[in-house]
C-alpha cells in the first residue's frame, strides 16, 4: 500500500522507509520557529535543558510579530528576551522591527521553508507552510524548547483526509479563504482533529500560491495537524530564487489510504462568511442578511499577502469607507508592504479613508492597533472569531475574504463585492 505526502515526508525525516497512521516517531526537523509570545516561555525551558547551544543556528527562527512594535513595557521585555537569545546564539534568522513581518507570511517569502521540509513552530498557524508541500505544524513552547536543543520532535503519524475540489474555475470573488471556510463549515472546528488535510483537484492545480497559503493556514481551524498541497509548477515558480536549501518534492501515491475523502464542486462555493463565535458558523454571502458593522480588518497571516491587498484595492478603488466604519489594512511583511506601495495600492486605501498599518499581528489577536469595544462588530480577513478574539468579550467578529471585507467597509454592512455601488 502506498503512502500519502504527509507520511512520506515524516518517514524521510525519521529514517524510515514507511510510516503508518498512529505510529509514534521521533522526527528530525528542518526549521523551528517561535514568536514574541511563545519563545520567551520556550527560552526559559531551553535554559533548563543544559545544552550550550541550539541544534543549528540557521534553523532556529525567531520572529517578534504579535505585540510588535512593542505595545507596552511588558511586551517590550518579552521581545528583549528574543533579541538577547538571538544575539547570544548568533541566530541567522531573527527579524527585528523594520525587517520583520507576520511569521507565516515571512518564512516562505524569505525562503526559510521549502517543499518536503518538516517544520515546527510554537504558533498554531505554522500549518501555513503546507502550501509549499512541507509538513508543518504548531506545537507549544516546551516542544519548541526541546526542538531547539535537539533538532527533533516526537509525532504521532496522522491519518489523512483528502479534499478534492472539482470544477473548472472558481465563482467570481471566490478565493482560497472561501474554499477553506466552506470546508470548515462542512466538517466543523474539530472535523479534522489530529489529522492531515490534503487539498487536491483541478481547481487546486490552478490556485495561486497566496490562496494556497490561506487554505493551509486555516487547517488548524478544523482541528487539523497539518494542511498540505502537492508541489507543482506554481509552487516551484514561487520557491525559485527564494529557498536556499535543497528541497524535495513529494506527492501521495495513487493507492495511499485516507480516513475520509470529500469531493467538493467548486461551483457550489460562493464567498463565505463565518459568523461569531466559531469559524464553522459559515454562511454563503447570499444568506448573510443585514449585518451592520463598525470595523473592517484586512490582513493577517491568513489574508495579508499581495493578492489579498490587490483584491481589496480593486474593490475600494475610487470609493470611500462608510461613515460609521473604521477600516484598517495590515500587510504581512515589509516586502509585501513595499510592493503594495509601488503598485499604488496604498494610495487607493488612503483615498478611501482606510488606515494602513506596519506589519504586525496586532488586531488579529486583539493585541493592539485596533481593538473592539463592547458590542462592536467587525468583518475580518483573519482566521478566528472566538469570543473576545479581537477585543471585548461582547464584541463580534465575522470572517471573510478580502473582497467581501472591502465591500462591507464601503457599505457599512456585510455585502458581496457585486453589491457595492
Amino acid at each position, binding site marked *: 500500500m502506498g503512502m500519502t505526502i504527509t507520511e512520506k515526508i515524516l518517514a524521510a525525516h525519521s529514517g524510515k522507509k514507511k510510516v503508518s497512521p498512529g505510529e509514534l516517531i521521533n522526527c528530525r526537523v528542518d526549521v523551528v520557529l517561535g514568536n514574541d509570545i511563545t519563545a520567551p*516561555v520556550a527560552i526559559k525551558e531551553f535554559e533548563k535543558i543544559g545544552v550550550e547551544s541550539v541544534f543549528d543556528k540557521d534553523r532556529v527562527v525567531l520572529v517578534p510579530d504579535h505585540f510588535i512594535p512593542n505595545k507596552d513595557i511588558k511586551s517590550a521585555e518579552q521581545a528583549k528576551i528574543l533579541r538577547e537569545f538571538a544575539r547570544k546564539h548568533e541566530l541567522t534568522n531573527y527579524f527585528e522591527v523594520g525587517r520583520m513581518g507576520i511569521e507565516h507570511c515571512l518564512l516562505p517569502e524569505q525562503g526559510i521553508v521549502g517543499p518536503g521540509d518538516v517544520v515546527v513552530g510554537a504558533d498554531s498557524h505554522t500549518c501555513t507552510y503546507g502550501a509549499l508541500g512541507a509538513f508543518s505544524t504548531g506545537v507549544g513552547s*516546551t*516542544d519548541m524548547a526541546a526542538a531547539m536543543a535537539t533538532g527533533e520532535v516526537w509525532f504521532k503519524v496522522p491519518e489523512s483526509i483528502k479534499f478534492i475540489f472539482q470544477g473548472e474555475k472558481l465563482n467570481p470573488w471566490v478565493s482560497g479563504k472561501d474554499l477553506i471556510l466552506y470546508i470548515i463549515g462542512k466538517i466543523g472546528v474539530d472535523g479534522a482533529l489530529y489529522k492531515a488535510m490534503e487539498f487536491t483537484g483541478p481547481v487546486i492545480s490552478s490556485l495561486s500560491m497566496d490562496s494556497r497559503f490561506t487554505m493551509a493556514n486555516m487547517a488548524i481551524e478544523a482541528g487539523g495537524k497539518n494542511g498540505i498541497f502537492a508541489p507543482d509548477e506554481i509552487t516551484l515558480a514561487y520557491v525559485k530564487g527564494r529557498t536556499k536549501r535543497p528541497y524535495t518534492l513529494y506527492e501521495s501515491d495513487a493507492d495511499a489510504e485516507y480516513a475520509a475523502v470529500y469531493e467538493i464542486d467548486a461551483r457550489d462555493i460562493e464567498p463565505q462568511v463565518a459568523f461569531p463565535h466559531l469559524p464553522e458558523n459559515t454562511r454563503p454571502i447570499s444568506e448573510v442578511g443585514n449585518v451592520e458593522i463598525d470595523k473592517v480588518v484586512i490582513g493577517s497571516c491568513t489574508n495579508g499577502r499581495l493578492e489579498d491587498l490587490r483584491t481589496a484595492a480593486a474593490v475600494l478603488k475610487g470609493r470611500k469607507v462608510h461613515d460609521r466604519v473604521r477600516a484598517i489594512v495590515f500587510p504581512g511583511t515589509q516586502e509585501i508592504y513595499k510592493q503594495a506601495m509601488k503598485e499604488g495600492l496604498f494610495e487607493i486605501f488612503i483615498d478611501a479613508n482606510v488606515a494602513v498599518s506596519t506589519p504586525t499581528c496586532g488586531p488579529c489577536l486583539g493585541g493592539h492597533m485596533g481593538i473592539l469595544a463592547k458590542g462592536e462588530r467587525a468583518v475580518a480577513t483573519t482566521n478566528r472569531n472566538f469570543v473576545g478574539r479581537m477585543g471585548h468579550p461582547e464584541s463580534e467578529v465575522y470572517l471573510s475574504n478580502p473582497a467581501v471585507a472591502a465591500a462591507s467597509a464601503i457599505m457599512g454592512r456585510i455585502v458581496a463585492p457585486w453589491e457595492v455601488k
Partner: protein
Amino acid sequence: MKIRGKTWKFGADIDTDAIIPARYLNTSDPAELARHCMEDADPQFPDKVGEGDIIVADKNFGCGSSREHAPIAIKAAGVSAVVAKSFARIFYRNAFNIGLPIFESPDAVDAINEGDEVLIDTEKGTITNLKTGEQYTSTAFPPFMLELIEAGGLINYVNRRVQD
C-alpha cells in the same frame, strides 16, 4: 497517582482565547495568568475555583492557538485535572509537556454534574463520580506519554537524553 476534586463544567469548543485571552499574554508569569483563567468563558471562574478542582468540558477543549499559557493558567489556578470528551491537539501536547493531567472520557462528561466530587486513578485510567459511585474509563496514556510523565515532563525527559 490519584486525583480528587470538585468539578466545574464547561461546554464544547472552549478555545484558548477563552482560557486565557490574548490581552494578558504580554506576560508568562503563571500567577498572573491564573488570575484570568477561563475569564472569557466564565468571568467569575478565577475567584471561585479552588485548589484541586477539576474542569469537566465537552468536545474539542483547548482549540485555537498554541499558547502554552492556556494549560499553564489552568494549572496555576489550582486545577488538578481536566476531563473532556476530546481535546484539541496542540493543547493535548502542551498539557502533557507542562504536567497538567488531562483525560478523554465522553461518558464521564455526560454523567458528571457541576459540583460533583470525582476521583481519577491515573494508572488505571478510571474516573469515579463519588456522588453517584459510577465509574467511567478514559483512554489510557500512549506509552510515549507515560515515559514523558515519568520523567516529569518533556524538559526533564530531554535533559536525560542529552546527558546520555
